[in-house]
């Protein structure tokens, strides 16, 4: 090492010697700093214009150069362009350079390090704090929606706190493992990201290709989201307050039949089924009950506040913040709420010149309660649209009250003691939604502390040794109380019960990395090696007591003494470990030729004994064409081509799935004793390993038009192999199938991100656009099958989607139809080659199914792919404009090329209400060719088959956010000791353009693309305030 240093010194001297000899004039001295943050610029080139003399600045930005009188110095620095300054010999100057207004100099977090965007050879997209500030988004993943090319985000519902489905470059696995890995300040976060306060985020970097995610090895397969929280800066104390509050409502309701219309159609349906008129005088029923009005809250309040304080000195900096969010849902507000308190403390301390110590610690408390958001089993909205409008919200008719079911002792009553209406028409889960909400009592809570501490030592220049210990400690649980109730014949509870669950998890990570950066001549290389150990473990316990002396959850307690038989206790624990080694070499020659290689070895306790370790390599390279001499900078000031290839894994599976475990509880009674029985849970698979995701990426970054326009294009091909899944085995095997590495899938796509900005005087304007196209295809599911069952509906389990080889994941599946039979002759004329009717059970007004396989009858074999819930295109744009104190932010987002399957009516309950579309049903020859007749006896399975009549165009474009702000002039607020006062008005989800006629075309979560009456995204009007001093 010593020898090398000596060599360098002599090299430097020999280079400098000629200039020293030529020292005739007095030198010009100076310091060059970054205009924006005052940092010294080391390594800037200083040249005398028209001369041969040149030097570079030292580490503190200082330089000294011989220049003749009247000379002009050219100062150039990568990313800052070249600027000219007139100088006089013998003088000292402070030059400040302005960074080129290009995104290429942004610092990107690349996982265990950072890089300037211009040097990045992989596909990484970033979102900065400035893009997110004041945006009314409460979950971190939502803030990526519409902002990052290649990232598709679909809210699972509009319920406060609801998670989103996030796919980075398409669905990468048929498992739940398609959600990306979240890494917050270096700590991998399991179990949801809702704990994070968006206002605390400095940057989010999305690692999209395999080469960038390879550093996360077996967990990077679905992409990685790196989140860096804010840190303090040296300087004065900054105090910032941001808050907003407002109201939310549904942007749309579904028109359903009123009582008169309902009774009319019911009669028609009853007669069609050979029954009698049930409601002799529909008109007398009037409008009836508007159940949606009972369930929706058009004035649901929400508020969000954050206070942050940051400051620092040369030695120490800190950032601390407090946040509070309180949101009520627009559906069933009493049962749909989200409250979050967050606190954060981040600090950095330079103990000596070489040793840095720091920490990032966040604490979050969440208390929430929710309702079912998109299923057919009695969510408030599903009930509201299916419940008959004849039943009143509360029953006051004495004649009815004296009869069953109102004489049942445990009927549910409102606060005035009036019994809630009980339908005598609709049954099962479709009951009075208001009464249903009354008996559903409970909430969930969580405390989470996530943080890390690190020690970084830089013993010699370029070498950094870092040790980080991170932890994610969470306590969470829930409680629920079910009083004694009678809602209808099938929904009653004879003995109350109170259940409480508590869970605790501690995930820790210990990482040690060493990185060494060295520049020699035009070569620049950084080598990183690291080792990590991680453990994920937790435990759960819960209990129920039934028959306690309580009538609501506030009175309920597990402390009430009840008999042994009325108390239950359960518990469990989980554990998995990960041990990894990784290395990365980044090399650049002359800022022109860039190269990077990563290798990670992951060992996971989740994998079978035959496959404990997995190796995940990647390489990437870039060529900055604009640095070449032949390049004409007028075409583009920056142009880089890059390509990458790599392998990642996905180890998102339950622990111990590779072995066959046995469980008890398979009991039987001998005599009068309950005897424990034990049997295996599933079949074993010792070869079980990670899923492999192999991805090739080719990309281009360019800056054009005098740095006003930046463009990034990426093309990728991502193949998932060895996809883990529960191997579905025939039931005759007698047990659940094992998890196996069987299936393959492919995603191919193209991404485009364009940014444009221009300042004209006081008018500042920028637009960012992004769009992506992705095509997903399941390519193999194993030797035994060509599809997997997807989503099903109702008690009959009607298949709505299937995962079929050669098609996208979750494709809609069912019968193709060809209009309606108009006449009995239509039915008889629709015949096969034997002359038999193809649909013998059909009647006029029924669907004509396409005999797809041409076998002369309609059977399950005629079902085909009907559509795709995954969008072909996702896009978004943000417009920022500011003029003097005013600013406007317009943010829109949309998808195209997707369908939604609408299944909002419980067809299996023939008396469920209809949407007003049923008014245009077939009810006589020529009345409709698309909406079948109504009947209580749907022999033709018009609605109990999955068919194309349920599909609708799912495209939408949404003005997600429109924000108008005004900042008070500095000279006014400075007088009162403030440095920032901004008021703003935000409209969220203001306008949605879509042909879809349900509550919301945005349907994520477990029922992706199938609308069972989804809890829609709220439209919010918010007023906010920023104050800083």
């Amino acid at each position: 090492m010593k020898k090398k240093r000596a060599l360098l010194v002599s090299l430097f001297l020999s280079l400098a010697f000629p200039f020293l000899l030529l020292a005739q004039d007095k030198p010009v001295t100076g310091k060059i700093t970054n205009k924006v943050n005052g940092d010294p610029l080391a390594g800037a080139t200083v040249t005398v214009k028209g001369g041969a003399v040149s030097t570079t600045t030292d580490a503190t930005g200082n330089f000294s150069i011989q220049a003749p009188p009247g000379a002009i110095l050219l100062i150039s620095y990568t990313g800052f362009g070249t600027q000219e300054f007139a100088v006089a010999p013998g003088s000292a100057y402070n030059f400040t350079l302005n960074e080129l207004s290009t995104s290429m100099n942004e610092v990107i977090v690349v996982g265990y390090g950072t890089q300037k965007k211009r040097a990045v050879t992989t596909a990484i997209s970033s979102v900065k704090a400035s893009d997110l500030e004041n945006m009314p988004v409460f979950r971190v993943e939502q803030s990526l929606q519409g902002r990052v090319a290649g990232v598709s985000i679909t809210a699972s519902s509009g319920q406060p706190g609801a998670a989103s489905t996030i796919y980075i470059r398409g669905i990468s696995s048929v498992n739940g493992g398609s959600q990306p890995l979240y890494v917050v300040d270096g700590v991998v976060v399991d179990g949801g990201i809702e704990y994070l306060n968006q206002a605390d985020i400095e940057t989010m970097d999305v690692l999209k290709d395999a080469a960038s995610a390879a550093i996360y090895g077996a967990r990077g397969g679905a992409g990685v989201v790196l989140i860096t929280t804010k840190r303090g800066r040296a300087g004065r104390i900054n105090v910032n307050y941001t808050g907003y509050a407002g109201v939310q409502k549904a942007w749309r309701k579904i028109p359903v039949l009123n009582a008169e219309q309902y009774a009319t159609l019911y009669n028609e349906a009853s007669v069609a089924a050979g029954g009698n008129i049930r409601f002799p005088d529909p008109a007398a029923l009037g409008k009836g009950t508007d159940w949606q009005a009972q369930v929706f809250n058009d004035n649901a309040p929400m508020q969000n506040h954050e206070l942050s304080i940051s400051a620092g000195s040369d030695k120490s900096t800190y950032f601390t913040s407090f946040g509070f969010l309180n949101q009520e849902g627009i559906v069933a507000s009493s049962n749909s709420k989200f409250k979050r308190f967050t606190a954060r403390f981040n600090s950095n301390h330079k103990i000596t010149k070489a040793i840095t110590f720091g920490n990032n610690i966040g604490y979050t408390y969440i208390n929430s309660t929710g309702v079912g958001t998109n299923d057919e089993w009695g969510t408030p909205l599903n009930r509201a649209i299916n419940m008959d409008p004849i039943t009143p919200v509360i029953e006051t008719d004495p004649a009815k009250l004296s009869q069953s079911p109102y004489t049942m002792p445990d009927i549910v009553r409102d606060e005035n003691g009036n019994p809630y209406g009980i339908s005598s028409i609709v049954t099962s889960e479709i009951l009075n939604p208001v009464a249903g909400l009354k008996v559903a009592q409970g909430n969930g809570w969580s405390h989470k502390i996530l943080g890390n501490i690190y020690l970084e030592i830089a013993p010699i220049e370029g070498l950094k040794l870092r040790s980080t210990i991170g932890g994610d400690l969470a306590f969470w649980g829930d409680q629920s109380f079910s009083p004694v109730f009678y809602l209808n014949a099938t929904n009653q509870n004879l003995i109350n019960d109170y259940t409480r669950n508590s869970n605790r998890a501690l995930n820790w990570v210990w990482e040690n990395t060493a990185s060494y950066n060295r520049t020699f001549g035009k070569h620049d290389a950084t080598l990183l090696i690291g080792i990590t150990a991680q453990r994920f473990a937790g435990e759960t316990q819960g209990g129920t007591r039934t028959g306690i002396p309580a009538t609501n959850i506030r009175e309920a307690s597990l402390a009430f003494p009840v008999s042994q038989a009325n108390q239950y206790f359960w518990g469990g624990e989980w554990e998995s470990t990960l041990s990894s080694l990784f290395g990365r070499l980044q090399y650049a020659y002359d800022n022109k030729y860039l190269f990077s290689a990563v290798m990670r070895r992951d060992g996971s306790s989740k994998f079978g004994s035959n496959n404990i370790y997995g190796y995940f390599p990647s390489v990437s390279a870039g060529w900055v064409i604009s640095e070449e001499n032949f390049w004409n900078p007028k075409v583009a000031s920056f142009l880089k081509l890059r390509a990458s290839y790599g392998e990642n894994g996905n180890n998102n599976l339950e622990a111990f799935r590779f072995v066959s475990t046995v469980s008890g509880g398979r009991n039987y009674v001998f005599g009068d004793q309950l005897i424990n029985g034990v049997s295996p849970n599933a079949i074993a698979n010792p070869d079980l390993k990670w899923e492999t995701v192999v991805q090739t990426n080719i990309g281009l970054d360019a800056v054009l038009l005098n740095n006003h326009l930046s463009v990034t294009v990426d093309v990728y091909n991502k193949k998932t192999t060895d996809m883990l899944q529960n191997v579905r085995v025939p039931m005759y095997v007698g047990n659940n199938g094992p998890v196996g590495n069987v299936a393959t899938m492919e995603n191919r796509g193209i991404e485009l991100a364009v940014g444009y900005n221009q300042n004209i005087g006081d008018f500042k304007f920028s637009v960012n656009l992004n769009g992506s196209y992705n095509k997903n295809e399941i390519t193999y599911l194993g030797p035994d099958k060509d599809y997997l069952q997807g989503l099903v509906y109702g008690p009959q389990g009607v298949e709505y989607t299937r995962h079929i080889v050669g098609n996208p994941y979750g494709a809609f599946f069912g019968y193709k139809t060809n209009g309606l039979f108009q006449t009995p002759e239509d039915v008889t004329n629709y015949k096969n080659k034997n002359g038999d009717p193809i649909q013998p059970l059909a009647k006029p007004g029924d669907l004509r199914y396409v005999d797809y396989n041409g076998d002369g009858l309609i059977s399950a074999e005629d079902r085909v792919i009907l559509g795709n819930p995954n969008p072909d295109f996702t896009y978004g744009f943000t417009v920022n404009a500011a003029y003097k104190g005013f600013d406007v932010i317009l943010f829109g987002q949309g998808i195209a090329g997707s369908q939604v399957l609408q299944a909002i009516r419980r067809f299996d309950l023939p008396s469920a209400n209809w949407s007003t579309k049923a008014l245009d049903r077939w009810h006589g020859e020529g009345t409709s060719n698309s909406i079948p007749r109504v009947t209580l006896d749907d022999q033709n399975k018009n609605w109990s088959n999955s068919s194309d009549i349920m599909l609708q165009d799912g495209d939408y474009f949404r003005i997600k956010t429109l924000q108008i702000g005004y900042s008070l002039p500095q000279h006014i607020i400075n007088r009162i000791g403030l440095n920032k006062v901004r008021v703003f008005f935000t409209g969220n989800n203001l306008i949605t353009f879509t042909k879809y006629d349900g509550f919301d075309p945005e349907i994520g979560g477990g029922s992706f693309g199938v609308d069972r009456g989804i809890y829609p995204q709220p439209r919010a009007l918010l007023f906010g305030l920023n104050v800083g001093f």
Partner: protein
Amino acid sequence: MKQFKLYIGIAVIGAGILTGCSKSFLELTPRGTELEANFYRNEDELAQGLVAVYDVMGWGTSGGYTMKMPLLTAASDEAYAGGSDASDQPNWVAYDNFTLDPQRGPQVGLWQKNYSGVYKANLLLEKLEGSTSISETFRMRAESEAKFLRAYFYFDLVRFFGKIPLILGPISSDQLYSFPQSEPQDIYAQIEKDLNEARPGLPATVPVNENGRITRGAATALLGKVIIFQNNDGRMLEAAQLLQEVNSGGVYQLLTNFGDIFRPDNKFNAESILEIQHSNLAAWGDWGWINGGEGNVGVQFIGAADYNGNVYSNGWGFCPITLDLVEAMKDDPRFEFTIVDGKKMKAEGATYNARYQNTDYFIRKYAPQKAYRSTVGTSEINWPYNEIEIRLADTYLLEAEALVRGGGDAGRAKSLLDAVRGRVGLGSVAPSLDNIYNERRLELATEGHRFFDLVRTGKAAAVLADQGFTSGKNEVLPIPQVEIDVTNKTLIQNPNY
């Protein structure tokens, strides 16, 4: 530089610790659960494996509600499906009306249940064979019980489905998705083999605290029944011989009082030969996996809906008795122990609501009675009513039938038939097949025998014609479509489905 070396040293040591430990760091053992490979070490654990096989006998709710007794009663001419409406249990309605198709009907539950039982029995037999640490006494009895249970499950499978995969051990990976179906006669041959092997190792009787465990009588009775179900008149005397062993072996007696047979407080009475245990001991509360508990949810199904009175507990109005059966039994002394007369109930001051296909007649033998309603767990799924699969009157009549069909001792056939009739005070009739079958209908009404009896005697087409029964099709259920799909159609669907 010295300092630097120190740092490197620390890092190297740290790396060493991590990588050195990493193998053990990654080798975790699950807590709270045992591995299959490590389990079944001793008699205790093998016995727990055996209990898990027994457990499946009590299942009625894998893949929907498919409790055998009410379901078969609805499928026969004894009762309708009932429930709140036709969409309440469409699978029952489909069986009742024979509008079955590969996706509609009770087939998934019945297929899954019985193959789960077969798997667990096979596994246990394999583990027993590999075990060296158990006594011969234990091995013999456990093996016998497992073989009996496997035979029991296959008997249901062959009767419900006909041609089915005959699986007797671990399935090799190349057959996992393409296990061939065997002809019913081969299934029956295996059932007989299992029962014959099981009989010697089973005790004639069990002590009270083992009530529910299989006895030799149960195996013998089942074997006799299995032979009769194969409809080979040439083997009827063989069946009669076996049934005689049960009927005249001195272990079982007809109860004097017919009404005592199905009293929930009279479990394992002298007439009961094969009885499936149900109780509220598990105090179960999970509607999503009712099989996890021990209750008999079938009881809840068949009670009158919203019943309000002193005797019964409100049920869900399934399986209203057909007027045919009411007519057939109206003068029979067994009527009041077989059928609940709703009108009479109302006259006595009780109320209930009519449900789908209401006839105002309900099943009595398993009727939910207030006195037995569970006060622990969720009452609906904790009914402590055992199911009697085989009782002495059944084996009497089977033996009588076998004797007649096989040309055996007509006098004994007559005395068996008369014994069943005499118990309820009915006079002697000639031991003709018609009389025996009629007696089966009345004696065993709503116990789940009728449908299979109609099928095996070839009467189903005539008797169930107005219910929609199609000959050559509805004798068996369709094989579940999901099963055909997952095997990529290597499973052949039953004819005409």
